[in-house]
């Protein structure tokens, strides 16, 4: 919302400075976004006097002037026909920037004669289009600042333009008068009275109005107008054009300009119909049938949908009610008889239609936020008066249907509540004064909001008005006491603690945590089991962000591809965040995903560099699971999602509960995502890790034995498809009391192994640690256990002890 200072002062009697007004506006909740001082660019220029003007020796049209300035006498060459001795001029000196010609002056030589500056025309200073000669001022002293002279003598061109941001709850502030009222309530002046003239109708309006019965209750409760005949349309007077131009509107003709003036000045949108083009003498306000074509004033044709409100004459739609008038019945310079409309429209209906047709107009903007329903007729009368004053003519009687809806409502003013809610002491008298100044009617503790404040809908709104006018800047903080005295209790949930543990562990393992977008492209989503309509964004911002991600891996792979394109080939990236398994609220789950790409390290003298492999991510996923408190004993299955290498991946679980998966990323997926491999990944489903059953900080007692533990090594020859975990579990199960641990310490596979042990065979080597608890083991005890281990393992694996 833009307005000028002088426009504001039409409504506000004030001596406050511009600075004070701007501060108050922002503080009141009418945030100042920009202030443009139109003459700021003229600040360097001063007044000067031409002492002497003589003919240039080498140019007929030029004169060499001796000019008295605040820096003494200067010589200036000038081509203006009116440059002559005795006149007071506006001087631009070398070094000054002249806006109208976009030039910073220097000392010039014109046809051989030095010139120290220039004397400006109005156009050169962007004051008007006048360029027939240089400015001649009737008054003013040499050396006086030109901007000071303008402020004194032509205040209209110095009028600062103020732009404020109006929050959707304040339609009343979409008119200059509403802004003035807020400032008056704040104490920055007095709201000037608005006197509504009595318009004496001289004849019955040849155009009458009729609201369709179906719209009277809601869509259009009140529609009024009157005909003014014998008007002369044409350009507006300068002051009106200047106002509209200042706020960025294009003056059109006086009739149209008056409607705009009311829209911005009083938040009262109006429309003018050229009576000569209205057929049948009745304007009908009705819901559209659907399919009507309508050429609007913006030059575009709109097809109305059934139910949209229209204003039609006998020939068809002439106006899209409350949003935009029609080209056909619009006013032109030839208009001599005009029908002036002032109506009250239902905000929701206007908003719905405006959005459906994508028309943004100043009228729609105001009607959908809410104009003053009680101001329909006063606004009409005021505008009629202005038309009569500026265009002449004669006004008819009122043509009206419906009535202003009664918005009267009463809320209780509880002065104590202001203190309680805001925490600021504001005397009751001041509270009452504020509300009264804002237009509330007070009757004891009953407050009736003014008709122009549709946003006031409860007691709390009264508090807000009082607090905002009193100024929240004055609010002084008061300590918030603890809910429970003493040392604060822990507040994180078990899952939140886990999320942190996962994140910190993953970073400690060397991954760089990323935060990638929750949405990805359909192709990538489909590769990872997503991409269905249930997770499709209806209005995506780009084709790369159309679906909610089913998994964190595609986002990390895309990130890896971007980094590889920049030359970073070895990566450890991770993300801890939500993945979406459906499109309903809550169909999301927390994943912690890591991705290793390329080599384990840079080349170095120690030979550290090697391609990353499955056992890197396996170690990492185990570390994360351990950090989350997962039990040490888990199952590893090969039932893994399709984006992993089928032979080089596994899922870690407890029974049917899958906690994590890891493996090499499927080469096809890598190719599709544009990543150069190898690439290994893991995902931990953070919530799937069971919470510990025991909830006490006390540790179980430490059980250690003084008896010597014994390690025995075994090597078995097995089929190469046998999983080593089978052997480990079998060995472990041999004697649960005695066997403390079983570790794999070697594996021998490949051609050499098969040459030694037979085709399709490999050897695995285990070390079994025996920990006696009551007596030292004898050689016989050890032999007995070893024999059982061999039996169990060979039975479980179908292998043999390696000889």
């Amino acid at each position, binding site marked *: 919302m833009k307005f000028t200072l002088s426009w504001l002062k039409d409504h506000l009697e004030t001596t406050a400075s511009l600075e004070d007004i701007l501060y108050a506006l922002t503080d*009141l*909740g009418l*945030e100042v976004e920009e202030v443009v001082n139109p003459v700021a660019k003229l600040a360097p220029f001063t007044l000067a006097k031409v002492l002497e003007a003589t003919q240039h020796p080498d140019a007929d049209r030029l004169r060499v002037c001796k000019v008295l300035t605040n820096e003494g006498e200067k010589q200036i060459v000038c081509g203006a026909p009116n440059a002559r001795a005795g006149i007071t001029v506006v001087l631009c000196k070398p070094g000054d920037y002249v806006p109208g010609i976009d030039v910073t002056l220097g000392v010039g030589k014109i046809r051989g004669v030095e010139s120290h500056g220039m004397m400006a025309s109005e156009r050169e200073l962007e004051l008007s289009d006048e360029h027939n000669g240089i400015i001649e001022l009737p008054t003013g002293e040499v050396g006086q600042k030109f901007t000071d002279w303008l402020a004194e003598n032509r205040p209209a061109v110095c009028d600062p333009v103020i732009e404020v941001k109006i*929050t*959707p*709850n*304040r339609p009343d502030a979409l008119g200059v008068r509403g802004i003035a009222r807020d400032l008056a309530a704040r104490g920055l002046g007095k709201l000037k009275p608005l006197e509504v003239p009595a318009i004496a109708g001289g004849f019955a309006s040849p155009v009458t109005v009729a609201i369709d019965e179906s719209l009277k209750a809601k869509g259009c409760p009140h529609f009024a107008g009157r005909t003014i005949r014998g008007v002369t349309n044409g350009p507006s007077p300068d002051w009106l054009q200047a106002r509209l131009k200042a706020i960025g509107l294009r003056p059109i003709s006086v009739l149209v300009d008056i409607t705009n003036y009311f829209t911005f000045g009083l938040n009262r949108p109006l429309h003018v119909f050229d009576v000569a083009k209205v057929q049948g003498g009745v304007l009908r306000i009705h819901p559209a049938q659907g399919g009507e074509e309508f050429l609007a004033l913006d030059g575009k044709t709109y097809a109305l949908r059934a139910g949209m409100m229209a204003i039609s004459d006998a020939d068809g739609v002439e106006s899209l009610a409350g949003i935009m008038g029609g080209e056909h019945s619009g006013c032109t310079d030839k208009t001599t008889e005009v029908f002036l409309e002032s109506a009250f429209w239902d905000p929701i209906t206007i*908003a719905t239609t405006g959005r459906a047709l994508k028309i943004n107009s100043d009228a729609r903007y105001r009607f959908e*936020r809410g104009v003053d329903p009680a101001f329909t007729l006063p606004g009409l009368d005021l505008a009629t008066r202005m038309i009569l004053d500026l265009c002449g003519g004669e006004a008819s009687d009122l043509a009206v249907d419906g009535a202003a809806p009664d918005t009267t409502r009463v809320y209780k003013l509880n002065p104590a509540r202001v203190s*309680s*809610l*805001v*925490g*600021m002491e504001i005397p009751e008298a001041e509270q009452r004064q504020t509300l009264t100044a804002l237009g509330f009617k007070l009757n004891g503790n009953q407050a009736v909001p003014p008709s122009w404040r549709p946003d006031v809908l409860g007691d*709390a709104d009264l*508090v*807000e008005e009082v*607090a*905002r006018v009193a100024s*929240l*800047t004055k*609010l*002084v*903080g*008061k300590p*918030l006491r*603890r809910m429970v005295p003493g040392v*604060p*209790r822990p*507040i*994180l*949930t078990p899952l*939140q603690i886990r999320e942190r543990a996962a994140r*910190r*562990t993953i*970073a*400690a*393992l*060397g991954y*760089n*945590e990323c935060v990638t977008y*929750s*949405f990805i492209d359909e192709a990538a989503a489909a590769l990872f089991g997503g991409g269905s309509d*249930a997770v499709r*964004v*209806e*209005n995506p911002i780009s084709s790369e962000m159309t679906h909610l991600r089913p998994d964190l891996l595609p986002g*990390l792979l895309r*990130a890896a591809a971007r*980094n590889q394109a920049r030359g*970073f080939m070895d990566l*450890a990236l991770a993300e801890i965040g*939500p993945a*979406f398994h459906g*499109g309903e*609220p809550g169909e*999301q789950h927390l994943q912690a995903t890591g991705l290793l790409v390329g080599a384990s*390290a840079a080349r*170095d003298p120690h030979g*550290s560099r090697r391609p990353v492999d499955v056992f890197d991510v396996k170690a990492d996923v185990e570390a994360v699971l351990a950090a989350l408190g997962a039990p040490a004993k888990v199952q590893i299955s090969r039932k893994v999602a399709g984006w992993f290498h089928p032979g080089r991946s596994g899922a870690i679980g407890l029974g049917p509960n899958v906690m994590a998966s890891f493996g090499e990323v499927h080469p096809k997926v890598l190719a599709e995502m544009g990543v150069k491999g190898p690439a290994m990944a893991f995902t931990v489903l953070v919530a799937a890790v069971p919470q510990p059953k025991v909830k006490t900080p006390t540790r179980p007692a430490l059980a250690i034995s003084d008896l010597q533990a014994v390690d025995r090594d075994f090597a078995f020859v097995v089929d190469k498809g046998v999983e080593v975990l089978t052997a480990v579990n079998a060995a472990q199960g041999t004697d649960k009391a005695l066997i403390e641990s079983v570790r794999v310490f070697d594996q021998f596979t490949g051609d050499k192994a098969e040459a030694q042990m037979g085709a399709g065979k490999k050897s695995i080597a285990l070390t079994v640690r025996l920990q006696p608890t009551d007596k030292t083991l004898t050689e016989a005890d050890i032999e007995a256990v070893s024999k059982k281990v061999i039996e169990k393992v060979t039975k479980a694996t179908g292998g043999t002890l390696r000889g």
Partner: protein
Amino acid sequence: MDGLDDLKAKYLTAVAGVTDEGALEGLRVAALGKKGEVSALMAGLGKMEPDQRKAAGAMLNVLKDEIDAALRAKKAGLADAALDARLREEWLDVTLPGRPRPRGTIHPVSQVMEELTAIFADMGFAVAEGPQVESDWYNFDALNIPPEHPARQEHDTFFMHRAEGDDRPPHVLRTHTSPVQIRAMTEQGAPIRVIAPGRVYRMDMDQTHTPMFHQVEGLAIDRDISMANLKWTLEEFCRAFFEVDKVELRFRASHFPFTEPSAEVDIRYSNVGGQLRIGEGDKWMEILGSGMVHPKVLAAAGVNPDEWQGFAFGMGIDRIAMLKYGIPDLRAFFESDLRWLRHYGFSALDMPDLAGGLSA
């Protein structure tokens, strides 16, 4: 006993001249070995008269100790020299790089979320969470933004696809963390203190906007919580978060449908040579929106507005991270550029806590 001085001189001279351990051992055997010269003299003691033996014995012991000490000293000296020689051989170029250890990083958004949590936990705020796909009721209606409210248009909402035949209003990607207020109050009732950090979504992408960003919501409901408490809470938060001695906040009246009264909050700062300093200077920057929870919002969450009141606020996490750590570009937060992650990321062990200072 004659000749002892000569013997002593002979061996001490010999020991001094020895250059290897083998020769030294030979000398030891020659002097002090079972058949050595000193041992032989010692053996001769038995044949002496007691008086004579006493005097000669003492002299021989002195001689033996002196030779032994010289032998030992020489031995240690030779060993040291040998070790020195070996160590000289074992020289390594220690300017070679150490074995690589991977160094991971925590994303600034995660770090700042933990900082927020540490501060608010101290003031008794728990961390609440909610779904990112939200029903329009939670995202709008319950927050006093009815379907035709102009504020809905200003939210640049992402809508989820609706299957044909499903007549429910489309779900949205939550446009703010405020729906978590409703969920938390519905679940826990009042009194309540929570913050709700998380991802939010708006259809906006340019120099300073990304379609996804992070917000933190704050909510405190009790019988007598006022806007003055809100101001104190935010002042304390900002002071602790920005790690400065004092901050100055300015409340400016504004409008949010879900709070009343509503205020936008500005923080005092200075800009010295492109470096922002919070708490000093003469500039003001808007950092968050806040207010007293609207009675309709309380009612929508099943909390009786006649009994309970309190405040809510919402703040951009990415934005305060940028302010605090001097990160220039929001878009880079989500681009996962390794150089950026390394430069602006935090170490795994850099866990924010109030005792040690958040970013210490």
